């Protein structure tokens, strides 16, 4: 069932993101201690496979998770259904992924 697949995809991406969010916040607090500059961030992230995988996974999970959530909100609050709903949901997923992936690429291997 399609609804079940979406439900599971949203739960699995949530599970995936929980440790990533904690890691993201922890590193942010740690890294910002002595002030933060663009150069400092880039010196840590550029060429780093680890940060690429960390934020790459994050972006992928967030685009799937967010798109499914917004799809439900749009469906239930705006009574949109059928092909239009799926097109809007896919657009949101692709847009979130593109924005996120560009940022990850820019700070790691660009």
């Amino acid at each position: 069932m399609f609804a079940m697949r979406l439900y599971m995809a949203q739960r699995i991406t949530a599970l995936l993101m929980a440790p990533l969010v904690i890691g993201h916040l922890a590193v942010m607090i740690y890294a910002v201690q002595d002030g933060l500059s663009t150069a400092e961030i880039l010196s840590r992230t550029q060429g780093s496979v680890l940060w690429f995988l960390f934020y790459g996974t994050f972006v992928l999970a967030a685009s799937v998770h967010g798109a499914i959530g917004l799809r439900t909100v749009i469906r239930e609050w705006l009574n949109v259904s059928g092909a239009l709903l799926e097109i809007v949901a896919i657009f949101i997923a692709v847009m979130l992924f593109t924005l996120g992936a560009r940022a990850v690429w820019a700070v790691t291997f660009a």
Partner: protein
Amino acid sequence: MCGSCAMMVNGVPRWTCRTHISTIAPLRNLPVIKDLVVDMDPFFDKWIAAEGVHHGRLSRHDSIPAVDETTNERTEANDAIECINCAVCYAACDTVASDDAVSGDGGCVSCHSMGSCTAYCPVELNPMLAIAKLKRVTTKRFFGGKQ
């Protein structure tokens, strides 16, 4: 039949036999037949589709099987055994209200655990917990587990 008197009383789903009435309207989330009478078929159809139905395996010639009240399954069933199918939970549900407007094919996974079912249940049952357990079973089954 007891449980058929549920309506929107003073804006919320209640049993009309137990409530002082200021305003009254037909039960929410169900098609109105006339005046205060609603067609409860959609409610029971979903119930049956969710397998909330008894499949008899014995005939009248078999002896009556003993019920072991200590088994897990039986203890779990106790939580909802006082349900009289009045559909107050169904009328209270905001997800049903918005989901049915679209297609209503989501099943238990479309529940947002808002808890109106549990808040308005006249016999103080906990349908929200029951749905949460259904989600757990469904999730296990999704990964190929039994039950």
